[in-house]
């Protein structure tokens, strides 16, 4: 580790993450990190999933959301903090991060008595700002997006002589993240493949280094969301390039450019990169909540999303480990994901039907719907834009069903009893919109 010198960074130029001089981490870095962090990092369980039989493969879930701050980032953060030279520890550290890295850094810096400052853009969710403050960090809200926040952080670093720690590309951080790989090999020795979520690439770099060194025949797949395919673009251009990020459910993975050190490390050792569609992410979160009873954030659920989207058919019959990297999902967003997931699985159905506006018209509709065991969630009525008979009202119904067959049963009942009706999925389908066809997988 001595060969990495920690110099204070100038603005825009972080010597630890230098484009011209990318560094590879080695297996020794990862194994040293494992010993260094073991006293305070939880060795999370790697349990067999209840979904294994459905997908025809032995799925194991590495529950790294059970770490204290809710994500695997603690491993890298603790490693980096312990490795700081003494004067840097007293001066303090600073980082710009929207989420898990800032929390992990704040928590462990507080434990190690190192002063921390965290800069977040003003779009940061309320809960995350709260959490960092509760771990003892000095939180500064500045800038409209991550770029401005990062610039501000780096200028503060220069001004106050703090050490800037990049959340995914610092070699010490990557080495720490790699300890997940070591634990996986210990807990599931005959693993065949590991699915790793990819944001900036730090976790993928660490895990790939660790596992490929010990057991090179294990397949390492990186999984990203299609709204931010930074690693895929980097692989196709042979170097990290900047990608436009659109707002995504996997906000922990929303990094426009992958790390230089990370890319250099994984370029030759990763077997495949996969991109998943956001709908599958919502469904994966729903599955993990309903069947495994885990609360996992979007970025952590990408591995499971890839499996349920059918993007890894070659892994059928094999032992696959999915790293559930984090569980810090905002409660409101969790609610929305569950609804989106239910809608995607056709368990939440929306349709319109025209009924008579006389007393009893809507009551009859409700009776019809509940007679087949469908539960009504919401009803809205609209009178002005109905064509035809003045005594009709158009009713929009949102209801909960047991699944696609139940929904068909509902559709048949409605179509047999009413003349004008419209089920949401079909309506959009008629327009030929590709986005709504839920089985369409974009790779």
């Amino acid at each position, binding site marked *: 580790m001595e060969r990495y010198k920690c110099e204070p960074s100038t603005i825009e130029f972080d010597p630890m993450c230098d484009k011209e001089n990318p560094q590879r981490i080695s297996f020794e870095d990862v194994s040293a990190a494992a010993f260094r962090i073991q006293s305070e990092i939880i060795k999370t*369980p790697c*349990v067999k999933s*209840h979904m294994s039989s459905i997908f025809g493969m032995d799925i194991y879930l590495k529950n790294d*959301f*059970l770490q*204290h701050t*809710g994500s695997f980032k603690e491993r890298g953060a603790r490693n980096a903090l312990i490795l700081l030279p003494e004067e840097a520890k007293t001066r303090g550290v600073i980082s710009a991060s929207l989420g898990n890295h800032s929390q992990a850094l704040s928590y462990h810096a507080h434990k190690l008595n190192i002063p921390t400052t965290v800069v977040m853009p003003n779009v940061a969710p*309320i*809960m995350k*700002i*709260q959490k960092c403050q509760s771990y003892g960090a000095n939180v500064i809200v500045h800038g409209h997006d991550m770029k401005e926040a990062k610039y501000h952080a780096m200028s503060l670093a220069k001004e106050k002589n703090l050490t800037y720690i990049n959340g995914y590309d610092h070699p010490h951080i990557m080495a720490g993240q790699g300890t997940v790989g070591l634990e996986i090999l210990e807990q599931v020795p005959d693993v065949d493949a590991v699915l790793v979520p990819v944001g900036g690439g730090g976790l993928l770099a660490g895990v790939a280094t660790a596992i490929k060194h010990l057991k090179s025949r294990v397949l390492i797949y990186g999984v990203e969301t299609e709204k931010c395919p930074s690693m895929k673009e980097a692989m196709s251009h042979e170097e990290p390039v900047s990608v436009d990020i659109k707002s995504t459910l996997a906000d922990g993975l929303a990094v426009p450019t992958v790390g230089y050190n990370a890319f250099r490390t994984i370029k030759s050792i990763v077997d495949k990169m996969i991109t998943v569609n956001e709908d599958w992410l919502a469904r994966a979160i*729903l599955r993990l*909540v*309903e069947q*495994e*009873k*885990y*609360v*996992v954030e979007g970025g952590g659920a990408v591995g499971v999303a890839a499996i349920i989207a059918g993007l890894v058919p070659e892994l059928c019959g094999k032992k696959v480990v999915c790293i559930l990297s984090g*569980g810090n999902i905002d*409660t*409101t967003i*969790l*609610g929305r994901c*569950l*609804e989106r997931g*239910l809608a995607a699985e056709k368990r939440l159905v929306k349709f319109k039907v025209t009924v008579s506006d006389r007393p009893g018209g809507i009551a009859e509709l409700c009776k019809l719907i509940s007679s087949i065991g469908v*539960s009504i*969630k919401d009803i809205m009525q609209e009178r002005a834009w109905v064509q035809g008979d003045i005594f009709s009202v158009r009713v929009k119904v949102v209801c*909960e069903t*047991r699944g696609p067959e139940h929904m068909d049963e509902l559709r048949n009942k409605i179509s047999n009893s009413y003349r004008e009706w419209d089920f949401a999925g079909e309506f959009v389908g008629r327009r030929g919109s590709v986005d709504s066809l839920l089985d369409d997988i974009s790779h």
Partner: protein
Amino acid sequence: MSRRHEDFDEFCDPENPRPIKYDEVKDALERLSPFITKTPCMPSHHQREFTMKLYYKIESMQITGSFKERGSLNVLQLLPLDKKKIGVVIASIGNDAIGICHYGAKLGIPVIVVVPVTIPICKLQNCYSLGAKVILEGSNLTESQRFARSLAKDKGLTYINARDHPHILMGYGTLALEILEQIPLVEAVIVPVGSGGLIAAVAAVIKHIKPNCLVYGVQSENIPAFFKSLEMDKPIQVPMQDNMADAISVPNVGVNAFHTAKTLVDKMLLVNQDWIARSILHLIEKERFVIEGAGACPLAAILGNLVPELKTKYVVAILSGGNIDYTSLIRSLQRGLSVIGRLVRFSVGVKDDPKAYSQLLSLIANGGYNVVHQFQDRIWVEGSDYTIEIKLVCETRNLEHALELKRIIERAYPYSSEFETEPFNDKRMCPCYGRVAT
């Protein structure tokens, strides 16, 4: 007496209650261990804030999502062979049905399940998908049990009282054996109580091995059947009410369970719905587990400050299950958020023109609040004809942030704003006021 004929179940006879024996539990453990997951007993991330060494026994990680499968597997394995071929009938409100269906399918035993019509959809769906025959009958568990018994008699099947059969209680006892093995220093165990099966089994085992360890039971204050029964020293029935903790919503106690538990349980606690909502929220946000209302009751007792005597001790809270359906989950989350002041509802009267409306919304946005829901009322407004009342639900960071919102709005709209709900009304109770069950 005709009633005796109808309700008589030889294993759950009030005249002849069967206590749970420790040796039977040990046998059960051996029988079950190849199949049942030995769930982890994880330390809470909030041990410092609660000032107790709190551990969670996470039974939601079982395959069927609750601890009930321990009992189900045991009773099915102990059935005589001829009865196994013919089949069983049970009455259940959810989790035990799923357990019996799952192992019935595995062991090849035909299963019929009678459920009351108030069963949550997700549990019903689980039963269907496991291939059992499900009959919806009765408005609460007692009626379903009566129907199941008569069905069994008609068709010659075996009726199993899924909440009180001695073999089932033996199976539950294996949970206590695991706790003693995983946390040998345990000083108190907090158990959710419905008909009392789990607490009877846990108390029987723990008091046998470690008599100094305290066993506390928690019930919802809406349906305190076991609590009242212990007070009166005999099993009594209480009226049914709607409850967030649906898995422990039973009006009766189990006779075997009551007989075993009445001398062994140290204390019974009652929690209200708000605390249950808060603990579900806490477990989701801080520990990242999805736990159903009944399973969250032990933590609700801690959050409601009902057990100050357990501070600095080793406490194990049994999170008995995670089968919560999405509607209840969302509702509990919102309830929990509103109780701690992170979701507030208020109404403001503004002039009916676009500028006034956008002014109000920018005021709210500048304070960092997120508008979750809003409703404009033009019809039932008192006062001038050009005012509309806007009802808003906003998300805030915490209680102080919510109070700041009240100050901002009242300053800007001094005569037309109304904050009726908690945390602003005078009905708010100080959170440290604990209602202790006497």
